[in-house]
């Protein structure tokens, strides 16, 4: 009885194998996401897939079931064993994977962090691809918030987790902008709360914000889970015209809120372009067309000229894209 089940499992396995096989190509690239079921990575994967069709590389996306710190390690080990040429990864931990990434690089594999970096462990990867210069996220978000509330009143931040490096970079920049730019002198940041990127927790925190700060006029949620939860709360309470919600969100998740006026505008970048750029960059480095050193400039179709910045970081775009009623339907991610 047991044997039969195992055989059935095998059959299932073969089926998946067959569908995963692709046309012959000049190199193999794999992208390891944070976890499966995260809609954000679908668009990054789309960029990889399309770029690989053009360049002729073999691409696969894998991701662990949970975003726990060590969950990506077996996947990196397996990819090393499979002999891929490029490992692109959205890291779940800033340092837990250092050893295994070093092992990959020692085997001659190009290691890229895409959409997030291993902050403080930059020496353990070859290059990092970020959608925008993250120092601009903070000021951009504050400006958008200001424009929605007339640059006046109490605002709060609904973030993800207390130790998320990107979030903390952005929040620090927001605070700095609010404090230093006289344009925002009437805007007062009253609280920063953390919803752990869980919808339930984010909702509770948002509700607590509303009851703790009755004079609140705006909430910035620079996380896709947070902005959706925040929008849902103001919508269900019918106070969208009193408390304005904005932040970083996925058009696919925010479309309804924008269309019904709950959220007038929010921002993000194109995750698609991250995959696209990563594939072209890998191709260039592996074929000797691009030298992976700070200051190198190279051209990527449809993105234009890209420069390798300090710590081997590249950005796909200069400023954040703002989504509103006018353009939301043009984006399919």
């Amino acid at each position, binding site marked *: 009885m047991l044997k039969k089940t195992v055989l059935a499992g095998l059959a299932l396995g073969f089926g998946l194998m067959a569908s995963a096989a692709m046309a012959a190509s000049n190199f193999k690239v794999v992208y390891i996401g944070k976890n*499966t079921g995260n809609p954000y990575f679908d668009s990054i994967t789309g960029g990889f897939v399309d770029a690989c069709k053009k360049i002729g590389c073999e691409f696969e996306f894998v991701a662990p079931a949970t975003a726990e710190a060590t969950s990506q390690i077996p996947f990196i080990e397996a990819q090393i064993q499979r002999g891929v040429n490029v490992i692109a990864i959205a890291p779940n931990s800033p340092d837990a994977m250092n050893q295994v990434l070093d092992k990959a690089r020692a085997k001659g594999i190009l290691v890229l962090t895409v959409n997030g970096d291993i902050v403080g462990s930059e020496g353990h990867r070859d290059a990092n691809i970020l959608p925008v210069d993250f120092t601009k996220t903070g000021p951009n978000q504050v400006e958008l918030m200001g424009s929605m509330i007339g640059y006046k009143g109490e605002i709060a931040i609904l973030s993800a987790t207390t130790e998320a490096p990107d979030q903390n970079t952005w929040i620090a920049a927001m605070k700095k902008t609010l404090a230093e730019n006289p344009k925002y002198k009437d805007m007062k940041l009253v609280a920063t709360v953390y919803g752990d990127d869980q919808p339930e927790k984010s909702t509770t925190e948002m509700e607590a914000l509303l009851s703790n700060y009755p004079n609140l006029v705006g909430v910035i949620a620079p996380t896709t889970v947070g902005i959706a939860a925040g929008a849902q709360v103001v919508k269900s309470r019918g106070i969208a015209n009193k408390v304005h919600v904005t932040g970083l969100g996925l058009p696919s998740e925010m479309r309804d809120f924008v269309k019904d006026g709950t959220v007038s505008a929010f921002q993000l970048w194109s995750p698609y372009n991250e995959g696209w750029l990563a594939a072209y960059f890998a191709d260039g480095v592996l074929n000797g067309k691009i030298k992976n050193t700070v200051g190198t400039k190279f051209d990527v179709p449809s993105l234009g000229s890209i420069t390798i910045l300090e710590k081997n970081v590249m950005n796909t775009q200069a400023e954040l894209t703002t989504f509103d009623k006018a353009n939301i339907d043009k984006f399919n991610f």
Partner: protein
Amino acid sequence: MSEAPVGLNSTVSATHRDAAPPRPLWQVIFVRPETLTFVLLVLAIFAGGQLSPYFLDIRYILDSFTLTAELSLLALILTLVIIAGEIDLSPASAMALSACLFAYAMSFDWPMWICVSIGIGSGLIMGAINSALIIGLQLPSIIVTIGTLTLYRGLAQVIAGDKSIRVPEWYIGIDKVQVLGLPAPDLIFILAAIALAFLLGMTVWGRQIYQTGTNETAAIYAGIRTRRIKAVLFLATGVTASIAGMIFISRLGSVRYDLGLGGELQMVLMAMLGGTYIFGGRGTILGTFLAALLLSVISTGMTTANLLPATQLCVLGVLLVLSIIATNFIYSRTQR
């Protein structure tokens, strides 16, 4: 049917009214859960080779085992706990808390012996809390350890927040150390398995663990200090969790509160798959040892084949259920 002669000096012979006939020797040797585990292991290695051409590489398989060596180590001690008729679902969380404390101490550059004492001591305290609740207050271990599972990991999160704590470079890399051609964590696991198998199979103490798990009341009546045995097992689980945490840290170079999250499922699975009887009294270290290898091979094989991790979840779930069905079936056949 004739009765055997009655009397003090009669020969020892049994009629079928006195005792059921014994099972044939081949059945005693082969019809046991460990055999099934071994067959599955062979099948899994074969299947892994079929799924991916990159899989059948002994070096790779041995290296991959280091990824689950810590949890496997805990599964060995958990096997003893289950044989004694209890269960402990908290060691993965205890490992995380102890490892966070250990790394925290190291980050202050405190002397190594203090750091180790903090690590081991915290494991001991967590084991003591479990035993106080389970043995002292006689609460069911399954529910108590579901509670402390949440509590210990929660405390790790309170202490370490969401950030990872790094340890000094010199401490990193136990999995790169090769002894006799084996990565150190693998060797530690094998040595621990041999030691525990000896303890369980050859010593009075091991014998009493089985007796406690088979029939605790009878064990008490036979003068076996069952409470002491169980308390020691829970303490040992705590200490093993802290040791596993230290190995884990050396492998990763850093630790976060979510270390080994969900590891309790894997540990229970290893014990069950190895033929440990969930109600206590039966099971072997050999079984858990084989099951730990089996799980490592399955997960490595499937990851190497780039199968959806969801498929692994399904396979693990199905294996868990099938393994207890098979174990129960075999035990019910061998015991009337």
